[in-house]
């Protein structure tokens, strides 16, 4: 990773000759995002070694050698006066001038960055000025730190590591839920309200359920079976009910129970709806790729047991259960 190659704002904006859109925003990767999030004061070196213009070059060389750094800011009367880098010292060595003062050889043409700027600003300044280190000043133009390309790389890596750890911690916490909480019978219940006819968002609840199961440490095959069953059930609530319904997931160490409850219109003949190919779906639903009369048949294939109760004009309750072999969910800590 080379921070210099991170695209600048102008490059991103100008990529297709139009302002940044949501789709472009998706293309910006996490490192670029961090370059705009992280501030210079978060990654800069605050512990400063400074020199004064009267010091001899050989004294500064000692400071550089002992601290293993390649340059120092030069401060005069509390104000930043210049920067002295190893290149300046090499220049002096060429003339056998090491006893000369810092003031003679330091770079006075000062390029600085502000501590409250984002690191993208520092990257651009590095690219434009071709220097290896930049003094950082605060709002009052006082020297508060130094920044190098190495500081930027380190800062981004640390931030990425933090991101990664957060997801790890989240997954770890979820997967140990059933071991950490002690009871005679622990059940995790998730409820989702499903709106009728909301086709665009159909499947959102099922998607959350599948992700929750994977975070809880469920076997991918079991998560897939639950996902398919609950998705068909969610689509049934959206397609067939008068006012939507409730989708519920109950997770226990030995069993996953999914159920849907609605208040109408109810199913007149349950035997009939269980026949593959029987459907009452509208053309709109068929255009979405559903309504082929396979929903309940599919559910039955995915789960270990399915029960359906319905009363016309009262509502329907569908219960689906999957048994978990003992090695799943609770028993995955050995892995």
């Amino acid at each position, binding site marked *: 990773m080379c921070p210099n190659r991170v695209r600048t704002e102008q490059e991103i904006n100008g990529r297709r000759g139009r302002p940044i859109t*949501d*789709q472009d925003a*998706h*293309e910006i*990767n996490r490192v670029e995002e961090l370059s705009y999030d992280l501030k210079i004061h978060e990654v800069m070196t605050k512990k400063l070694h400074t020199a004064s213009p009267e010091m001899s070059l050989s004294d500064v060389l000692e400071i550089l050698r002992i601290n293993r750094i390649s340059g120092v800011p030069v401060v005069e009367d509390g104000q930043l006066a210049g920067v002295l880098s190893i290149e300046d010292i090499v220049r002096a060595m060429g003339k056998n001038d090491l006893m000369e003062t810092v003031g003679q050889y330091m770079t006075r043409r000062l390029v600085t960055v502000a501590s409250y700027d984002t690191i993208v600003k520092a990257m651009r300044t590095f690219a434009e000025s071709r220097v290896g280190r930049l003094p950082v000043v605060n709002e009052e133009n006082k020297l508060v730190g130094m920044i190098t390309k190495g500081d930027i790389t380190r800062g981004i890596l640390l931030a990425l590591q933090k991101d990664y750890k957060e997801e790890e911690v989240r997954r770890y916490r979820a997967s140990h839920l059933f071991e950490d909480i002690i009871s005679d019978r622990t059940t995790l219940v998730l409820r989702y309200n499903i709106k009728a006819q909301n*086709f*665009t*968002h*159909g*499947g959102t609840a*099922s*998607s959350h359920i*599948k992700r929750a199961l994977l975070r809880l440490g469920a076997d*991918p095959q079991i998560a*897939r079976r639950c*996902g*398919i069953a609950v*998705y*068909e059930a969610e*689509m049934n609530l959206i397609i067939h009910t008068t006012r939507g319904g409730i989708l519920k997931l109950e997770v226990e160490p030995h069993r996953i129970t999914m159920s849907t409850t609605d208040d109408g219109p109810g199913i007149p003949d349950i035997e009939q709806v269980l026949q593959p190919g029987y459907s009452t779906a509208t053309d709109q639903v068929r*255009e*979405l*790729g*559903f*309504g*082929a009369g*396979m*929903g309940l*048949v*599919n559910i039955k*294939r995915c789960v270990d047991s399915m029960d359906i109760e319905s009363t016309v004009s009262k509502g329907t309750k569908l219960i689906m259960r999957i048994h978990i072999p003992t090695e799943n969910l609770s028993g995955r800590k050995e892995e």
Partner: protein
Amino acid sequence: MKLHEIIKFVDGTILTPELNLNINIHGGYGADLMSDVLAASQPNAVLLTGLTNPQVVRTAQMADFRAIIFVRGKQPQHETLELASQENIPLITSPLGMFELCGRLHKAGLPSFESNVSQ
């Protein structure tokens, strides 16, 4: 077979440039009936379909498909693109029809991941 190889075989255009194409695809499935896809597919396949609504992405996510190819140059709606990006399922559009798409990929060595529906 890698997804980027598949894209070459089908003259595909990538619709989700932010997603990783260096992923392994183990088989293929061609269908427009999502219930069929949910009923009889195996995980880690690519889905070839003529439907472009968000339910296609949901179906792919539930059944563990790794990517979706739209046939006959179809362009998905905005919601579909957004959902695919969010759920990390690459979308590709190919100018070829379903028949030729399936034929090319099968000939290139990609097996069918459509399982038998009989119970």
